[in-house]
């Protein structure tokens, strides 16, 4: 790894020790979540696919279902229970690990720099590269720990040991790469939010590239770090050599980060900010104008990502039919003519997964209000003749309207690429309507975040993300894990009919809308009654 003796690295080990101390509660939670995810998937699959018939049926359907390939990975090794575990759990594990690597690395690099802590640290006997090296070492160690936790979760629930260790190592490898990616991104922009945006975009791109590659079989998956991990084929081919890619790639990225660091000033990014306007535009005259100004960059980035995703997912729908044509086993289960249903099932899943992402957006926008409050930036606005309800309402408006617009864009983009393929323009309206059907569910998630912000301001940010994680977990796993019905009820996204896979129903949408209104009102009400709480 890195040699800790050159002068620019002085103090790295001391900083690493300090960073470990700062994260000693956070990191174990991530690791436990990873281990638990594998253990639950493993035990549940061992029950569900106990019989050879069940396993064969699964292999035939999942192996030819574009949706499951798009969201899981290459359909290999599905003739063993362990293989199904690797197929279903590898993408969630990768996402979890990458998020951990991103938050950990950004927290100890750009966030520290933005708050001025790095300046204080660097004024001591600490080399120029020490903070970023300590942060990346911490993240690499955490990812390795995640790998160990994953391996333990799989092996302790009875899966073969070699594959367990391979799955863990492959998962850790993606984390290492994204540690490097985050370290590089942290040099580019001066704000922590910008770093999260860039890394999130890189993760999204890696997932999409891999999905296209695995469905079209054109080798594109090798362009994605996620594809590298899945190319190890745990419990089937058990290949170790693809891990050379992260092992080589990670140090390269870390060196690149250092190189960039040497080319910029402390506190700034590589991109120098241009001077701004001397006077404010007319639009910046109200709390809503301010909220729009603060959120618009993130919203536009999300819109671009969602449109791209919709176009790709819509375009891939066609390959559902090809996949079945290629697979004689599958033709037994899906006789000719039933493919329309399959395409609809696929589209239903893609729209649902995108709705979960939009729920993530709406929460990040809602807790943007809390970030403003914690940073002390709500104070001058609230002391300038703006009421509490108007201030919080402005942020909520952007979060709700923005999320609704993202859903509409998702439906439109999916519909456009579908209509181009089929030549049937009605898909456009049908899919836009289907995507917008998730609006009440997304509003409920925003409402939960708003209620948390009003009631428990100090804990609102982590609590709101736990809500998003919970909703996503329930929506994605409740069915395959056979969780009881009352659990599914807890996810507003799962309660929304997955049109076009399922039939329209007005009642759940109305109930969810009413719930959203109640939650938002509760949040606004408690925010109005409470003290402003600094962060």
């Amino acid at each position, binding site marked *: 790894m890195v040699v800790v003796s050159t002068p620019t690295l002085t103090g790295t080990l001391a900083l690493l020790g300090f960073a470990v101390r700062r994260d000693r509660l956070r990191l174990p939670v991530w690791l436990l979540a990873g281990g638990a995810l594998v253990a639950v998937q493993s035990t549940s699959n061992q029950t569900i696919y106990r019989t050879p018939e069940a396993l064969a049926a699964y292999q035939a359907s999942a192996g030819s279902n574009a949706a499951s390939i798009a969201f899981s990975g290459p359909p290999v090794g599905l003739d063993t229970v362990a293989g199904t575990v690797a197929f279903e759990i590898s993408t969630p594990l990768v996402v979890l690990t990458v998020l951990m690597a991103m938050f950990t690395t950004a927290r100890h690099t750009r966030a520290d720099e933005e708050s001025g802590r790095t300046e204080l640290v660097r004024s001591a006997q600490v080399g120029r590269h020490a903070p970023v090296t300590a942060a990346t070492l911490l993240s690499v160690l955490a990812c390795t720990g995640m790998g160990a936790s994953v391996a333990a979760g799989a092996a302790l629930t009875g899966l073969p040991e070699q594959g367990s260790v391979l799955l863990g190592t492959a998962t850790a490898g993606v984390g290492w790469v994204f540690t490097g990616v985050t370290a590089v991104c942290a040099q580019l922009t001066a*704000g922590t939010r910008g770093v999260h945006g860039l890394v999130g975009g890189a993760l999204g791109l890696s997932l999409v590239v891999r999905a296209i590659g695995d469905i079209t079989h054109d080798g594109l998956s090798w362009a994605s770090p996620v594809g590298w991990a899945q190319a190890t084929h745990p419990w089937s081919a058990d290949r170790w050599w693809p891990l050379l890619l992260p092992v080589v790639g990670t140090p390269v990225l870390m060196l690149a980060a250092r190189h960039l660091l040497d080319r910029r000033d402390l506190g700034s990014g590589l991109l120098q900010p241009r001077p701004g306007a001397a006077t404010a535009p007319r639009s910046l005259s109200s709390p809503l104008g301010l909220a729009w*100004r603060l959120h618009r960059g993130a919203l536009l980035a999300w819109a671009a990502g969602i449109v791209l995703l919709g176009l790709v997912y819509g375009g891939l729908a066609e390959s559902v039919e090809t996949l079945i044509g290629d697979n004689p086993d599958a033709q037994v289960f899906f006789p000719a003519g039933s493919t329309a249903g399959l395409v609809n099932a696929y589209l239903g899943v893609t729209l649902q997964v995108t709705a979960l992402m939009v729920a993530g957006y709406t929460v990040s926008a809602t807790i943007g209000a809390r970030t403003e409050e914690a940073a002390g930036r709500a104070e001058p606005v609230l002391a*300038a003749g703006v009421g509490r309800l108007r201030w919080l309402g402005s942020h909520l408006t952007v979060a709700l309207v923005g999320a609704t617009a993202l859903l509409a864009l998702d439906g439109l983009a999916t519909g456009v690429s579908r209509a181009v393929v089929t030549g049937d323009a009605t898909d456009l309206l049908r899919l836009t309507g289907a995507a917008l059907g998730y609006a009440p569910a997304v509003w409920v998630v925003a409402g939960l975040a708003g209620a948390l912000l009003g009631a428990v301001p100090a804990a609102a940010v982590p609590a709101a993300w736990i809500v998003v994680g919970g909703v996503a977990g329930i929506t994605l796993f409740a069915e395959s894990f056979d969780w009881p019905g009352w659990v599914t009820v807890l996810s507003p996204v799962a309660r929304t009919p997955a049109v076009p896979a399922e039939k329209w129903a007005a009642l759940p949408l109305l109930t969810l809308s009413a719930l959203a209104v109640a939650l938002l009102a509760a949040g606004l009400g408690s925010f109005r009654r409470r003290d402003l709480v600094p962060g």
Partner: protein
Amino acid sequence: MTAVISVSDLVKTFGRTRALDGLDLQVRAGEVHGFLGPNGSGKSTTIRVLLGLLRPTSGRVRLLGGDPWRDAVALHRRLAYVPGDVTLWPTLSGGEVIDLLSRLRGGIDRRRREQLLERFELDPRKKARTYSKGNRQKVALVAALASDVELLVLDEPTSGLDPLMEAIFQSCIREARAEGRTVLLSSHLLAEAEALCDRVSIIRLGRTVQSGTLAELRSLTRTSVTAETERAVTGLTGLPGVHGLQVADRRVRFDVDRDQLDGAVRRLVEAGLRSLVSAPPTLEELFLRQYGDVPTEAVPAGRWSS
């Protein structure tokens, strides 16, 4: 005179912390009122209660004739606030922040804005992220001073300003007073308070310990007297109101209560007064006497007589 701010017996607790513990504060219309106290004594907390950002635990608070919690929005149109810790939106320029805050308050005097930018030598085009500490402070000050409001609430507004800017700030405050505005000025700079304030309130541990004009505060405390006489002074020991008497050869030093000054000086005259220095306490001394470890009863002998 009507009270612009009237606080009595204000208590504010945060969990087990008792930040304000029966605080009183009266600010009259048209005055510059200094709000002094050591770190953590509750100045910013009081100001946040006055702005309706914190809800009082108990006590009576009136601001511009209204209830700061209930009537917050209407009252805020009539005041401008500079927070103690100015954090700005990193991606907005200084000029945009000034315009935004004044528009929210209901409008801006463009000419005054330009004048202030010029006087404070502030470049409005820079992004807030790239301002120095003092320049961030100036953004908040210009936004507040450019608004046409009755009351200015300033929480340590000059922390970070250089002496030149401090002087400009002081002249701005004098102009504000001349225009009939009221100013509540929390500060650690006693020279600043002494130069600007008509009246001051000194708080400690969330409680008001002294309040009044500087002259009043001084008259409540003792005058220090240092004198040289021809003969040894007699009769000072045991004289009521004389404290911390130190005699070194023909020189004496003591503190004396205001109403006993006359009697004490007579004794000096009787001993043949050669030189006399008598100083009212500076605000600094008042302040230190209130909270510092400076004893009020006796000055340790070694400190002066050696």
